[in-house]
């Protein structure tokens, strides 16, 4: 997951374990994501996280908020549009 974030952000955003796990646990507590242990032959078992329905809704809402926010901020920081 950390790698995914790093890759998608073009290396601009990196997540250390010490930041990642508290966020994960919090999101799980809120019911936005659900973690499950998956065991594979010959490997240490891993925990995989999946977005829940509630998480989908929260994500959609936050995406909208974020877009509105960035639009607003852009309007301010790029005065040429005003």
């Amino acid at each position, binding site marked *: 997951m*950390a*790698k995914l974030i790093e890759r998608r952000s073009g290396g601009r955003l990196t997540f*250390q*374990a*010490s*930041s*990642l*796990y*508290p*966020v994960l*646990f*919090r999101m799980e*507590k*809120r019911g936005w994501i659900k973690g499950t*242990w998956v065991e594979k032959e010959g490997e*240490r*078992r*891993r*925990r995989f996280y999946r977005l829940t329905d509630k998480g989908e809704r929260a994500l959609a809402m936050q995406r909208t908020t974020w877009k509105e926010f960035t639009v607003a901020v852009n309007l301010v920081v790029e005065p040429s549009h005003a």
Partner: protein
Amino acid sequence: MPDWTKYVRENLPGGGFRGELGAEIQEEIATHLEDAYAEALRRGATEDDAVARALAEVDDWERLAERIAASRRRAAEAWGTEGAEATEAALRRRGGGWGAAADMLQEFRYALRRLKKAPTFTVVVLLSLGVGIGATTAIYSVVKGVLLDPLPYPEPDRLVAVWNSAPGSGEALLPQSFGVNAVYEDDARSFESVGIWGTTTSLVNGEDGPEEVPAVAVTHGLFPALGVQPALGRGFTFEDTQVGSPRTTILDHDYWVRRYDADPGVIGTTVIIADVPREIIGVMPEGFRVMDRPASFYHPYRYTKADLTLTQFTFRSIARLRDGVTAEQALEEMARLLPMAAERYPGGVSLEMLREIEAAPVLHSLKADLVGNVGNVLWVVLGGVGIILLVACANVANLLLVQSESQERALAVQSALGSSRRRMVLRFLTESLTLGVLGGMVGIGLAVGGLRILRAVGPADLPRLGSIDLDAGVLSLALLVSVLVGVTLGVLPLVRAWRLDLSSSLKEGGRGSGAGRRRGTARNALAAAQLALAMVLMVGSGLMIRTFISLSHVAPGFSDPDRVLTFGATATATEVPDDNDVTRAHQALADRLAQLPGVESVGLSSSVPMDGRAGFDPIYIEDFPLPEGQQAPVKRFKWIGGGYHEAIGNPLVAGRAITWDDVHGLTRVVMITEGFARRVWGDPAKAVGRRISTGFSAGDWREIVGVVGDVRDDGLDQDPVDVVYWPMAMRGFWAETSGPDALFLQRGMTYVVRSSQVGTPGFMDQVREAVRASFPGRPLANPRTMASLQHDSLARTSFTLVMLGIAAAMALLLGSIGTYGVVAYAVGQRTREMGLRIAMGAEPRVVTAMVLRQGLALGVIGVAAGVLGAAGASRLMDAVLFGVSPVDPLTYGAMAGGLLAIAALATWVPARRAARVDPMVALRAE
């Protein structure tokens, strides 16, 4: 490859992550580190580099642990907030009144958040309110359980205690006689049922040999009068009470469960009590008691109705009024019946005597009879804790005032931005209500603990202790008080906020305004009120201290109570069959006890001071014959063996003591107390050699050989009573009832052992052994020191003292904190002014004095108001005071001085701070 799981386990401060969840968290992070390590290796890093890479993933283990813990905590909170927000939104969608409910819910949430942000304020407020509400709740539950709750019998309002009054005999209240009771039983139409009862003991075979258990004796009318019948078997009939019928008994429920495993088959079986078999005919219902007296057995009184005489007015009686009959109607009928008792049962008090002593029936409500005068103590204590609640409220009100002032500008801004007044009301009320209710919860918690302590330290003679409980009634009162307190507390800052002058609040430093002065007045008034209330409580406890000291200094009629052991021992007919041997058997035991180590003296008496076992009868004086038609005064009687007064520590005032030789030789001698001697002969020495007698009429003269000190036989706080000491064996005593040559004899005596060893572990065993050697059939009864009797007599006083003392200490603490708070706040507000004064050359001393004056003014006003309040309130305490006036100047002066000193001390700290204000800092701060 390193063991990452082990590594994580060792590095992650694991306090909060135990159990399965903790293991999972560790495992998950370990996987993460392992992945990083593997990734690094794959990219061609060396082993060391790869490990370093993985380790870099977590730079601060402490912080990680903290964050994980926080994420879980905050998640819970966030969930709560989300839930609350969702509920509020749902309520708002419904519209109408629901919107207001949503607002309230929201304000409640905000209030909680605000309180959480100011933990010191919250803790102080909740503790103040908690202590106030808790103490009030606890004491109210006692008042309710003891004084207010109805007696645990059906239709308790119809229950009355039956007494007689006989002002002509010197006794205001005379207990009942079997003869009068028999007349009421047969003819009183006002009563549904009437009966006599009394306490006794039963000697049974216990698990460790013979033991004495408490018992209650009743006539057949008593249980029906109380309206209670046995849960099992039958109650007593008239036949059960008549001499010659088979002996019966009824078991107490708890005893039946304990000793008979609640076996219903016990009915009809036989139990041996004091060597006499009795048939068990019933078991009383669970929790049943006669007037709060513990009992294992209920026995019927046994008498022969035809042989009754009108004598022995010594029994307690209870009646149930017929439905619709008033006490007045019953009294009218009883007054008609009373003379009939003298005719129907001749041989005792005659019709003429009844008239002479002005005998009349008396009815008390049964509850008043049971509770007695303990109500005085309880109301005083309830008043005391009520004052605590007031002081706590005043304190909290002040805190809220100050707090709301600090929010003034925020409020003004909100108001300017269009926040509605309705919303403001809601906000203040919700916050104070939240405080009130939370304080109430703290209080109920404290009350639960307090009651536990109270049950342990409460006066031993507090009746109905068992019925004290935090029941629904008490709890709802506590809740009501909490809500009331909450609303009241909210009103004050609310009124202020309502009047809030926007412009002046928004202006910087707008403190000289009229609103500010009003506020200052409110705060000063609250502080002065706290001091005044504290003063009332301090005077109350001061008066109790004086009472306690007075009581400790009275001469009780005994000395060194710690070193005096008393216990009962009986020479039963099995052990000492011949009456003529009884006194020698007792002396043998006394001699045996005297041989024990440390024993200085041994004596015996039928009754020791304050044990309530003395007899009462008339006394005639040879020197002063009674005028025709006048009744002889009734004196207290005790029967003694040799050495009693020496052992108990009551010195001879004149003459000599009754000796064992007097006892064995049936000498016609008697002793009296000093007060009696002085009142009759003016001088104790003159009483020696004079003669007195008892009986229905004078004539059986016996010589006074000695006079001893006065005895406070009714308790330390009661006046001494006249006591007459007879030898424990006499010939021809009360010849009217027992015949001229009959031997009057006390078989059961209370032993008094004076020894330095009393209270040491081995001593009691040695005493027990000595009693067993003399009287093997019956164990020594009720061992206790005179100190414990004295302690019981002081119990109510010390209870009141301790409760008022605690209340006064708390009020003083709260009051001084309140004064400190007000003065400190005022100083804080006037920092600039102080700075200016100092800058312009005022001496720090002058500034200190200025602040001290403010504090002392509060103190003086508080003390003055407190003195007035105390003078009014302490009059209500009159009943619990002894040897001190309710307006005792010493107490008032000392307490006023003390309170002023405390107020000065509370002012001194902020005053010093005011003097140390640095003018530059003070002026720059603005």
